[in-house]
């Protein structure tokens, strides 16, 4: 019998230099958390800038916040939470061969919800352009400092969208590779790493939603 038909799931997922899959999994997970910490630090710089300018122009940021679309922001927040829940199921299901296809279905659910998020974001951006909410000479709000708020809005949401696009690519790649080799899928640490990345995308959006979409509501 050829090696291709006799190798175990652990052998399929094991990579050099690790000697066993448990160590490989732990190393990948730790490396992923270290990467996520650097990502948090990256976004922290933007959030710190936002905080400083908001303390400098509190009224302008409050007024500008009221011009973002709570409908799109809230719906997208709910969509990402559902996708995170779907992704949260994947690592615990994927390790059981009998639940492998269910885990891959959850991956596709998460990826499709990610695409739905981007589609809604596209509609929201179109609406923002129509309302002249892009910083520049035609900017709609005349309060001093409001353009700064929308400079943060465009930068943060665009950078987040790039992260989401990368996440969708990683999730789709994992689902396709897992369908091709279900035994590899049941053991590979790539499942955990992808789920962690997806979680980060949701964590960042949770903060983005609160600082960009909730100010300026009510009286």
């Amino acid at each position, binding site marked *: 019998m050829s090696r291709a038909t006799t190798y175990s799931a652990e052998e399929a997922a094991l990579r050099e230099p690790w000697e066993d899959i448990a160590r490989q999994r732990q190393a990948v997970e730790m490396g992923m958390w270290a990467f996520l910490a650097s990502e948090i630090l990256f976004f*922290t710089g933007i959030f710190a800038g936002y905080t400083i300018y908001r303390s400098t122009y509190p009224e302008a940021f409050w007024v500008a916040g009221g011009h973002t679309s709570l409908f799109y922001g809230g719906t997208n927040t709910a969509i990402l939470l559902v996708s*995170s829940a779907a992704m949260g199921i994947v690592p615990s299901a994927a390790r059981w061969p009998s639940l492998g296809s269910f885990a891959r279905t959850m991956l596709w659910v998460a990826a499709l919800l990610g695409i739905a998020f981007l589609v809604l974001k596209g509609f929201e951006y179109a609406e923002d352009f129509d309302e002249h909410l892009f910083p520049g000479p035609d900017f709609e709000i005349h309060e001093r400092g409001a353009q700064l708020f929308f400079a943060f809005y465009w930068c943060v949401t665009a950078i987040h969208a790039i992260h989401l696009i990368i996440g969708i690519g990683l999730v789709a790649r994992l689902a396709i590779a897992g369908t091709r080799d279900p035994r590899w899928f049941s053991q590979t640490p790539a499942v955990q790493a992808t789920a962690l990345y997806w979680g980060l995308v949701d964590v960042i959006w949770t903060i983005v939603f609160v600082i960009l979409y909730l100010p300026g509501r009510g009286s």
Partner: protein
Amino acid sequence: MSRASTQRRQDSQAPTIASVVRRPAWVLLILLVILAANIGAAFLPVPHFAKTAFNLLMAALTIAGIAFIFMELDHKGVTMRLFAATGFIWLAILFLLIFSDYGARS
């Protein structure tokens, strides 16, 4: 033990789909309620500072739910949790320094 019998043993120990889904589904429900509460609170006639503080508190709860349940931090040991916390610790240090200046300005 043959590979086929190992496979059968694994399948017999495997949890059901319902048991794998139950906990994330409950947490999702709670997080959606928190989201609704956060949106509702944004319209309350209270001072801006109070609204922002509440919104950030709800965001922190949501992040805890995502990190501990969806990212499975609740199953991990101290070392892994420490790794996971590093980003937030740096964030806290940066904001402490920012507020020690801007928070003290009149």
